[in-house]
C-alpha cells in the first residue's frame, strides 16, 4: 500500500546526520534514492485515531480517564476543548529493509533507517493535515502534534494510547515492556483542538527542550 505522500530527500539527509552545506556525493544520492524507492514499494502504513474532550488545569491535562502531568503538553494544549489521539506506523517492512541492508552495507542501512524516519514523519503530517482540515470545518483549530516521550511528557503514557485506541489490533504496532514501539517506524501523538485560532509558529525541533543537544535537530 502506498504511503500517500512523498518522502523528502532533504529530510532523509537530515536524519542521516548531514548538517550544513553538503558535499554532493553521487554515491550517497543514489543510495538515498534507492532506499526511498524500496521503502515506498513495500511500506504498509496504518493508523488509528480517536477524539476526546480535554481539560487543562495548571500542568495537568485530562482526557478520557487519563491525567497527564506535563508542563510542555499543558502549554501546548492551553485553551483546547477537544483533542485527537492517534497512532501511526509505516509498517513492518521498513525494519526489515534496514536489517537486510545492515548485512551488506552499513551506509545503505543508515540511508534506509533515515528514509524510514522521514517516511513515518511525512505520513504523520498527512494524518495531521487531515485532522486539522476536518476540525477546522467545525470551527476548531489544531495545535502542533505532541508525542509521549517528547519534552516532559512521560513515555509511560504510551500505555494509555494503546489502551484507548486499540492500537495493536488495528495497526499491528506492539508496545514492548520497555515502552518502545515495534515496528520501530511508528508514532503516537496528541493533537489539541481549540476554538481559538492561534498562530502555531513553534513546532517540531524548535519547540523541543533537547534542540540544543540533539544531533538531528533541524537548524537553519
Amino acid at each position, binding site marked *: 500500500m502506498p504511503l500517500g505522500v512523498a518522502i523528502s530527500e532533504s529530510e532523509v539527509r537530515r536524519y542521516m546526520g548531514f548538517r550544513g552545506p553538503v558535499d554532493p556525493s553521487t554515491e*550517497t544520492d543514489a*543510495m538515498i534514492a534507492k532506499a526511498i524507492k524500496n521503502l515506498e514499494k513495500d511500506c504498509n502504513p496504518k493508523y488509528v485515531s480517536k477524539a476526546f474532550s480535554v481539560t487543562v488545569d495548571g500542568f495537568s491535562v485530562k482526557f478520557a480517564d487519563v491525567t497527564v502531568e506535563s508542563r510542555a503538553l499543558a502549554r501546548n494544549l492551553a485553551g483546547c476543548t477537544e483533542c485527537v489521539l492517534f497512532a501511526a506506523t509505516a509498517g513492518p517492512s521498513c525494519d526489515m529493509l534496514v536489517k*537486510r*541492508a545492515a548485512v551488506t552495507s552499513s551506509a545503505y542501512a543508515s540511508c534506509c533507517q533515515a528514509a524510514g524516519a522521514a517516511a513515518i514523519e511525512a505520513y504523520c503530517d498527512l494524518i495531521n493535515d487531515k485532522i486539522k482540515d476536518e476540525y477546522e470545518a467545525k470551527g476548531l483549530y489544531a495545535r502542533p502534534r505532541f508525542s509521549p*516521550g517528547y519534552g516532559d511528557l512521560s513515555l509511560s503514557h504510551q500505555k494509555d494510547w494503546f489502551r484507548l485506541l486499540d492500537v495493536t489490533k488495528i495497526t499491528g504496532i506492539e508496545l514492548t515492556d520497555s515502552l518502545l514501539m515495534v515496528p520501530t517506524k511508528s508514532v503516537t501523538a496528541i493533537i489539541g483542538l481549540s476554538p481559538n485560532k492561534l498562530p502555531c509558529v513553534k513546532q517540531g525541533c524548535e519547540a523541543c527542550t533537547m534542540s540544543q543537544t540533539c544531533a538531528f535537530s533541524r537548524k537553519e
Partner: protein
Amino acid sequence: MGLRERLGKEWLFCDGGTGTILQEMGLKGGELPETWNLTRPDDIKSVASAYFNAGCNIVNTNTFGANSFKYDNVAEVVSAAVRICREARHEAGRDDDAYVAIDIGPTGKLLAPMGDLPFNEAVKVFSEAIKAGVEAGGDLVLIETMSDSYEAKAAVIAAHETCDLPVIVTTVYDESGKLLTGGSIEGTVAMLEGLKVDAIGVNCGFGPDKMIPIVERLTKCCSLPIVVNPNAGLPRTEGNKTVFDVGPEEFSTIMKEIAAIGVHVMGGCCGTTPAHMKALIREVSPLPFRAPIKKHGTYVTSFSECVEIGPKPVIIGERINPTGKKRFKQALRENDTDYILTEGLKQEEAGAHILDINVGLPEIDEPAMMENIVYKLQSVTTLPLQLDSTDTEALERGMRIYNGKPMINSVNGKRETIEAVMPLVAKYGGVLVGLPLDEDGIPETSDGRIRVAKKIYEAADEYGIPRDDIVIDGLAMTISSDSSSAITTLDTVRRIRDEFGGHSILGVSNISFGLPARELINSHFLTMAMQNGLSCAIINPNNDHMMASYRAFCALMDKDPQCLGFIGAYAEYKSDGTFGGASSGAAGGNAASSTGGAKLSLAEAIERGVTGRAAEAMQEGIAEGHEPLELINAELIPALDKVGKGFEKGTIFLPQLLMSADAAKAAFEVVKKAMEGKPRQVKGKVILATVKGDIHDIGKNIVKVMLENYGYDVIDLGKDVPPETIVEAAIKDNVKVVGLSALMTTTVVSMEETIKLLRVKKPDTKVVVGGAVMTQEYADQIGADAYSKDAMQTVRYCDEVFGVQS
C-alpha cells in the same frame, strides 16, 4: 457426534461478538474482559446462553485475551470460562449438538525477530491457556483474530502439542487481502493446511460486504472447511462509544450471499449480537450446503511470499552450503552469520525463488546453527527456505521456528529415513523432497527410480502428507563416470510428471562433476531438464549461464508474459557475451567499481567509499605479491583513519564514514578469502549488545563494523539482550571490553543492571556505553567506565584499553 465428523458436511454456526456486548453491560475501556469470568460469571453466562439459544453450534469461551502477559491466574480464568460456557450449553439443552470453543486471541506482542517475543515462548504462553481449557472440558480450540501468520503457527503448535481437539484458525486481512505482517491469503492457507488444522477462515477487520473478495480468494485455494465471522460493519466512534452500523437483517442478507460462494461455518465478530446470529441461521440453514473441494496446488511460503511449484520451473539457490567451500566452512566455524546471510541476499538479487539452507559441518552444533540461520535469514529475506540436512534434529529445529511452509530436503526410500522425516512434515507441514534411492542403493535405471518414488508417495499417504507436497529428485549424477547418467535422470524427471502427475527437482550441477567448463554442461542440461518437465532446479543463481538458460526457457515456453522478465534482465546485454546488469548480484548499496578515468588505489577507494573498487584493489595488491597484512597497515588503516579523523572534526558526515567502512569491510573480505583457514591477527575481543528491552540496534551495528575494520574480534550479542547473557559471554571468552547501547531512558535501566551484574561477576571488564539519550553525565551516573558519542570514539576507547597506538 463429534465436531470433526460434522465440519465440512453440514452448515455450522459460530457465535457473534462478546466484547461489544460486555461493554453494553458496563465493561470499561481498558478493563480486562476475562476478569468477569470470576467476578461477574452470571453476566458472562447470559451472553453464552443467548448464543446457544439463538442456535449457534460453536460458542466461544470468554478467553480471547487470557494469557500470562495479562493474568497471573490464567488457568483459573480459563477454567471458569469453560465451566460457564458448558453450563450455559446444558441449560439451553444443546449438549448434543453444540460445542464449547476454547477461544484464543493474539498475545498483543509481536514475535521475534520483528518484535520481542521468542517463538517458543509464544507456544508456551498459548499452551498454558489451552491446557486449562482442555482440562475444564472445552471441545475445540478456536484461534482467532490473528494478524501475524507466525503467531498463528505458534498457537496451532501449542494446541496440537496440548490436545487432540479440533483446531480452527481465523485470521484478519486488510482490504488488499494481506495480514498486518504482510502475508497473503494463499500463503496463510498453505501454512495452516500444512499444520493440519481442521478449518480455516477470516474474522473481524470489517463488515461482511468487504469480506466477499477475500472469501472468494479463500475458496479458490483452501481445501478445508471455510469459516467466515465478520464484524457488523466498520466500527465508528460516537462520543466515547464504539458503534457498528450493520443490523441483523442487513447482516444476514450479505451473509447469504457469502454462503453461496462456498463456505461452511458462519458467525460474527465485533458488533454482532445474538439477534444477528438468529437472522443469519434463519437465512443460511435452508441453503444447499456444498462440501469443501480438495485443491491441487503445491506451495512453499515465507511470512510474505508464496511460491507455487508447477506452473513454471522454480530456482532454488544452492550457495548456502559448505560443501567444497573453505570460506563458507570458516564462516560456520566462526559463527560469522553475516557472511552466510550475504550469500542468501546475493542469490535473491540474482533471481532465486527459494533458498536452500545447508549448514552441516561435523565440528559444529548443526541443529543450533540451522535454527539460528533460519531465524536470521527470515528477518532479512522474504524468500521461502528449503531446509537441507541429514540431521533430523536440525530439520525439526528449523521447521519449528520457520515462519511459513518450508521445503524439506530430504527423505528417501529407506524405511528408517521415512520414519524419521515424515512425522516432522506431517506435524509442521512442508514440501518434501524425496530421493529415489533406498536400502539397495541408487537405482541405475529410471524404472528403478520410479519404483522407489512410488514407495515414497505411498509412505506419504501413510503419514497423511498430501502427494502434492512431495517433490521427487531425479538424481543428477556426473556423466564423467557414466555417460548415460543424464539420460536416466531426464527419463526419471519426465516419468515423475507423466506417471504420477508429480513434481521433480534436481541438483543440476552434479551432472558435470569432474569435467572442465562445467557451466556449459550445466546450463544445457538445465534446459533439457526443464523441457522434460523439471519443476525445481537447485542451482547457483549467481551464474550467468544458468540464469540465461532459465530465462530463455521461460521466454520460449510462454512462461514469461510479454517476455518482460527476459527483457528486464538483458536490456544491457552485449553480444560479446558479457551479461551487463543481468545478474551482477551485488547486494550492497554501492557496487560502483570505478568513478570514471583512472583506477583508484586501495587507499583512495576506501577514502571515497567505493566498495567494489576497494575489494578489487586489494585483490590486485595480493596478486602482485604483497602480503595482505602489509596492504592493511600501509593503505587500509591509514585511509580509514583519515576518514575517521574528518568525522571527528565534523568535516565528514556519518554516511561517508560508513561508506568508507563498507569499502574497508569489502577489502577485508578479500583478505579473509586469501588467508582461508589461517588464524587472523586480532587486537582483542569486544562484546557488543543492545540492552534488554531495547530493539533499536543500528548504532550498535555501526560500531561493530568500525571495530571489525580496526582489527577487533566482535562478539555481537544482538538486541534485547538480558544482563545475564552479556555477563556469561564476558566470562566465557574472558572479554575485556563490553559495549552497550540503549535508545531510550526506559532502557537505560537495563544498561545499569547489566553494569551492576558485570561488576559483581566480572569486575575486570570495562564497559563503554552509547545511544541517543546517553551523555557523559548519564554514563557516570549508571557506573559505566566510558561514554562514546559515536563509533569512532568507541574505537579510540578500545585502542586505549588494549594499549594500541593510534
